[in-house]
């Protein structure tokens, strides 16, 4: 019964098509001499040898241009007052599939005029760069565009502890990449999340990333 069903659903192709016969090639006189073919091959290799072309990039001296959407080492952005922009909402920690982000939140001192616009900020913010799979989901989850992936790809360290990036380290990555002119591509290009608006109402840094990028490159 089942066989008949199979027959009905899959009509067997003709046996000629089922078995693919590869006929051995028939060679002519020149091929049977072998020497012309070898000479041809040598001509090809010699042509490549004397062409002087090279696809090698002298890596440490000549760095590759990394595409703008590359997902490298994280950075924690600063707001216009130089504070950490993160509001300690834990969305990135929740979104992280590798469970590599550890945040401890603290309430801000309401009496301090510097902090009166914020309720919380991260007391500690640690990313395990070895655990991270660089998927960029923290970047997408962040409502204030505080965490971003930069184009730094050559991250090395001698110990596991060294690769646990704390808040200061992540902020310093922000400072470095800002000077280097590599601006990560935002989740929402050119506009920041609603919570990231500063007290003055102006959008903090680089409201038009394309422009700043261009300036940085030219400068």
């Amino acid at each position, binding site marked *: 019964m089942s*066989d*008949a069903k199979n*027959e009905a659903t899959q009509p*067997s192709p*003709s*046996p*000629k098509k*089922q*078995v693919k*016969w590869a*006929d*051995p*090639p*028939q*060679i*002519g*006189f020149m*091929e*049977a*001499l*072998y*020497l012309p073919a*070898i000479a041809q*091959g*040598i001509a*090809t*290799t*010699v042509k*490549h*040898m*004397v*062409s*002087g*072309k*090279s*696809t*090698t990039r*002298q890596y440490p001296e000549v760095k590759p241009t990394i595409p703008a959407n590359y997902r490298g080492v994280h950075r924690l952005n600063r707001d216009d007052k130089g504070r950490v922009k993160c509001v300690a909402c834990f969305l990135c920690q929740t979104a992280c599939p590798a469970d590599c982000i550890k945040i401890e939140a603290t309430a801000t001192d309401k009496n301090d005029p510097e902090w009166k616009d914020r309720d919380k900020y991260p007391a500690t913010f640690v990313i395990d760069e070895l655990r991270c799979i660089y998927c960029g989901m923290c970047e997408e989850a962040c409502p204030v565009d505080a965490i971003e992936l930069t184009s730094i790809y050559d991250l090395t360290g001698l110990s596991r502890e060294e690769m646990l990036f704390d808040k200061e380290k992540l902020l310093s990555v922000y400072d470095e990449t800002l000077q280097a002119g590599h601006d990560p591509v935002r989740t929402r290009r050119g506009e920041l999340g609603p919570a990231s608006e500063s007290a003055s109402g102006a959008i903090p840094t680089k409201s038009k990333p394309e422009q700043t990028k261009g300036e940085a490159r030219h400068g």
Partner: protein
Amino acid sequence: MTWNWQTIWPLLVAIGIVLAVVPILGLYLTFIERKVAAWIQDRVGPNRVGPWGLLQAVADGIKIFLKEQVIPDHVFKTVYFFAPTIGLICAMLSLAVIPFGPANANPTEGFRAIIAPGVDIGILFVMGISSLSAYGIILGGWASNNKYSLYGAVRSCAQFVSYEIPLGLSLLGVIMITGSLNIEKIVAAQGDGIANWNLWWQPLAAIMFFTAALAETNRLPFDLPECEQELVGGFHTEYSGIKFVLFFLAEYTHVVAVCFLTALLFLGGWHFPGLTGAVDSSIGTYLLRWLVLLAKVGFVFAVIVQLRWTLPRFRFDQLMGLAWCGLIPLGLANFLGVVVVLSLGLPAWTLAPYSIGLLFFSAAINARQVTRRAKELAARSVVQSSVVAGVKRSGNVQAAS
């Protein structure tokens, strides 16, 4: 020949040159090979150590001498230790009778750039000793007590046995034309202008010698004993550090010997248009001749390296087929031609058209055979497919019922 200081000092100098130059040459030939490989593959090659990477060879040498020597527990220690040295000693010994510079056919005059001048069995000695170096590979593979190494050793064994024959047959013609086994005499016989080079009289033998010699040195496209992809390095899988280097050096010494032999036996040695006749005492022409010889050797080495990156590795049955069905019959026919020409007193130039005709004839036979085989296989595939169709139909009938 009396033994006194006058006869011994050239000997010591020659031995010193060979012993000092060959290992360094081995390292630098590796470097040259890597560079050429890089250029062929549109890369840059080693360029970090020293200017243009020239010190890479030195760095490699130091690195490999300081490397840890891993000796597996399962090896047969005595043979394991001796195998690489056997290989290197045999390869070095074959250089004893090969002139590495201009040398007189007359062994009593002046400095000769050869360790053992005037050996009357020169070529025979080279052939015998260099084929002994197969023992290095075979014993190394066997003592490693590892199936891949043993496969490499067995392959090497079969390859050496097969390719010794065409190697000897290809040289027979040259030896008979010259009437001597002495390498200096064979070179001297090619001294009267470019037309006297054995390459023109024995083109087929030259190609055969080169092919068989490549197989003897285990170079690509005949490097089946070491065959990285199939045998994980073959006979030297279990070797590391300096013992591996000895194998390596043996291979390169062999390559150097083959380059010199090809240049000396077929390309006229140190003779060149304008530099004909016997070696004279003038130091200028002496050095010029040396340069000519080294240029020819370099040319042969360049061809060997170029071939390495041009031709893919042979399959083993193809390798055996080339020796037994291709080179050996051709070598015998070529030998027969030389015998006929010499015994009938025909002019020697008749050998050139004979060689080329022989090559074309064999190619025609080869093409015919391959085509016939292809047709046979095609016919069989038609028969088989009809059989398959019959089986399928009866199967369908059963399923339906």
